[in-house]
């Protein structure tokens, strides 16, 4: 039904009419392309494969098994329905005690039990999306800024700025040192803000990083702590990918740094967490704000009324996360499967001369396609991205949507599909590379002048002879073509 538009329709607010929702970002364009033509192994095998969604779909079988064996965890089953009333009525913004306890325990386990989290400091929110906005409302006035290292998750622009009126200022990082955050970059960003008369209220980091998939080492974390202490600004650590670390070095949480050194001002530190990535439950909207600042906890808790976790979900999660045996098994399996998926993919890419940033966490790869750009520009990157979507039929996310300072990087999600789909994706990449091989006079139909879609392989025949890299039983050969250009 559509309604007759009257001559005088009352206006909407500035927030409603600006672009703060950030949906015009290319990050979302790929989603649209996928939505119009989604891949399906049998029904639409030529559709676009979604590699722009950082989801963790590798361990649902384990969760399903647990659910079948634990009917009491649901208030809808015969076994659990006696709890229905109490749970349905429970809207206390402190959250179910068993929920807070279970989450605190889980957070500790994910960090190797090197730190303990206090259930009383746990505040609920509508997913990490809600958590980030809530923290910003509590820490920043409209016009205040947060520093954030680039490249960063596109959602931050909306989450921290849209309704709060806060702003994000980039701390520019470069591939020359693997995008590490340096003291100099922080100081530069801070100085720029001061010059522009912008009040900096905090620094936002994501650790493990999205989109890089890398973790911050201890020294860097300490550097960050001393920086924020010096400037007397807050530190917000989004540790949403904490349990996606699948290989050494081990994850170091900001919580550990705080425990180690009593000189740091804890009142400045706040952690954002969620079960969307580690457990693979984005639909359940389990967001957590964990703050070492009592005033923040108090205020945040009151604010959480705007985004509480459904008590039905709290109850289920409490039950699941307190099952020590299950969680132990889950965390182990999950990181193992991620490691395998990561290796299969990076190997597959390497075989055709495509390198990725060396990473040990996350649900994605940070793929380096700078060599395919004739000019190092955002336009060239966008052109390449269109080719990837339209010709290779993969929705990957262009680095510019993550505010990356260097064009040519792409985030490729690898944990949101099964093995078969992964193989299809790799095959397509491979075929695309072959099609654009080093043959004289060959022109790609959709060739853009700013792209060099000629892969610099000395012997294309070698690529075709390389045994199937997907088989788990055949050793991944040392391809003579490994020398990809940068």
């Amino acid at each position: 039904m559509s309604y007759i538009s009257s001559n005088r329709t009352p206006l909407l607010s500035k927030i409603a009419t600006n672009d703060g929702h950030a949906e015009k970002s290319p990050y979302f364009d790929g989603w649209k392309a996928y939505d119009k033509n989604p891949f399906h192994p049998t029904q639409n095998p030529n559709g676009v494969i979604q590699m722009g969604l950082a989801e963790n779909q590798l361990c649902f079988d384990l969760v399903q098994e647990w659910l079948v064996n634990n009917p009491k965890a649901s208030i809808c089953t015969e076994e659990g329905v006696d709890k229905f009333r109490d749970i349905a009525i429970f809207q206390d913004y402190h959250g179910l005690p068993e929920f807070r306890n279970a989450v605190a325990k889980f957070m500790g386990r994910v960090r190797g039990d090197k730190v303990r989290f206090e259930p009383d400091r746990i505040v609920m929110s509508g997913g990490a999306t809600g958590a980030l906005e809530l923290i910003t409302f509590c820490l920043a006035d409209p016009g205040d800024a947060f520093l954030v290292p680039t490249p960063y998750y596109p959602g931050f622009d909306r989450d921290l700025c849209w309704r709060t009126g806060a702003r994000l200022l980039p701390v520019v990082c470069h591939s020359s040192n693997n995008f590490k955050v340096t003291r100099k970059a922080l100081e530069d960003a801070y100085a720029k803000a001061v010059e522009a008369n912008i009040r900096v209220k905090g620094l936002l980091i994501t650790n493990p990083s999205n989109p890089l998939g890398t973790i911050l080492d201890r020294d860097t974390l300490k550097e960050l702590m001393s920086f924020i202490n010096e400037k007397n600004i807050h530190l917000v650590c989004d540790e949403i990918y904490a349990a996606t670390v699948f290989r050494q070095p081990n994850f170091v949480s900001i919580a550990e740094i705080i425990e180690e050194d009593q000189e740091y001002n804890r009142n400045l530190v706040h952690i954002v967490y969620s079960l969307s990535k580690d457990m693979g439950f984005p639909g359940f909207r389990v967001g957590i704000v964990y703050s070492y600042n009592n005033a923040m906890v108090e205020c945040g808790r009151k604010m959480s009324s705007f985004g509480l976790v459904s008590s039905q979900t709290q109850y289920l999660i409490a039950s699941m996360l307190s099952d020590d045996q299950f969680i132990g098994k889950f965390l182990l399996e999950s990181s193992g499967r991620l490691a395998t998926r990561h290796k299969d993919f990076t190997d597959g890419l390497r075989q055709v001369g495509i390198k990725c940033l060396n990473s040990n966490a996350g649900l994605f790869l940070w793929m380096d396609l700078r060599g395919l750009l004739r000019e190092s520009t955002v336009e060239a990157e966008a052109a390449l991205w269109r080719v990837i979507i339209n010709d290779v039929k993969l929705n990957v996310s262009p680095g510019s949507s993550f505010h990356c300072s260097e064009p040519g990087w792409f985030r490729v999600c690898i944990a949101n599909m099964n093995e078969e789909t992964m193989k299809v994706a790799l095959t397509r990449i491979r075929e695309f590379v072959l099609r654009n091989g080093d043959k004289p006079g060959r022109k790609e139909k959709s060739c853009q002048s700013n792209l060099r879609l000629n892969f610099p392989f000395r012997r294309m025949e070698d690529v075709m002879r390389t045994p199937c890299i997907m088989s788990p039983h055949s050793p991944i050969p040392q391809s003579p073509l490994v020398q990809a250009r940068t």
Partner: protein
Amino acid sequence: MAIEIEAAPSVQLSRVADSETHGENLAYFAGWKAYDEDPYNEASNPSGVIQMGLAENQVSFDLLEECLEKHSEASTWGKGAPGFRENALFQDYHGLLTFRKAIVSFMEEIRCGGAKFDPERVVLTAGATAANELLTFILADPGDALLVPTPYYPGFDRDLRWRTGVKIVPIVCDSSNNFQITTEALEAAYELAESMNIRVRGVLITNPSNPLGVTISRSVLEDILDFATRKNIHLVSDEIYSGSVFSSSEFVSVAEVLEAREYRASERVHIVYSLSKDLGLPGFRVGTIYSYNDKVVTTARRMSSFTLISSQTQHLLACMLSDKKFAKNYIEINRTRLRKRYERIIDGLRSAGIECLKGNAGLFCWMNLSPLLEKPTRESELDLWRTMLQEVKLNISPGSSCHCSEPGWFRVCFANMSEHTLEVALERIHKYMEQRRT
């Protein structure tokens, strides 16, 4: 608790964080605290404080549990939980279509088919708390105002104002006409805002009203809609208690008024709904915004990312509410039980010498204790409230916390307790009134 680091400069939180606009230092919440410290329990604490300040619906759980039994497998993602994966992954801010359809069907049933709703216009939020705040962000800029009839739900002070920076200008209603909203009062509120240089962006009504427990008549709804049209402002109708009207024929939704007008001027109208009151499921955080304005729907949907409903809960409720027989049956029986409760409390209060506003909906009655006040002042009302809390051991909500213009009125909830507890409460009131007479 963490070791406090001494001598560390404390970094300020934001202005929003420091403000008191969350409203938690008011009497409304103070009563909750008193109850928390000494809660009544039939067996273990029969002389504790009886909670009559919480508008919850606990009278129809058996019906829900029965429904669950029938749909158990469906709601737990099927035998062996094959549906779990898809559900756990579902974070699309459009919301589950099955759930939106089910909610629409439920809303239509409540209005006895007097209005039709389109599932594509339903936006989901985690509770009406979030819905009201979200709409405010969309309809008004910081410093602007929404007009709200008094007395109103205390939570609005937080929901509409705290993080949005929007103001509430009261549309003052009084007992001379049973607190009905008049065009004069609307105009007066608008002029007051204008005189303070505040831009009015909309009117927000609650229908049925909290705390009055009365539905707004069709003609008053027409007047309000006309007023909003004249001033070219929005109209938000919070219909969270629509399923709690004691007699189905007495509720007129703004949706029905719009349908009768063939949806002219409807782009300014937005309805808020929730399952917290009608179904008694506040813990599940199920709120909805229904807007006749396309841009509002699109924007609200995007904004709902901050406050989506758990897909697990959407799935459960889709299963339950798609059972139309259950829904129809539930609405009827729930209504009847609420009406019986209401009649009992009115009767009990009357025999104690206390009158209430004539109500026809909701989970509470609007009690008139103004004859008992020492002086017709807010202070006297609060004194009486404290007496009720500390001596009579009943937590009821003072009208001043609802911004009522006349002191002496109290909101008394009756659906959040067993029948026996209600009798205990009535007995205590009786005793108190007797003591006063002697």
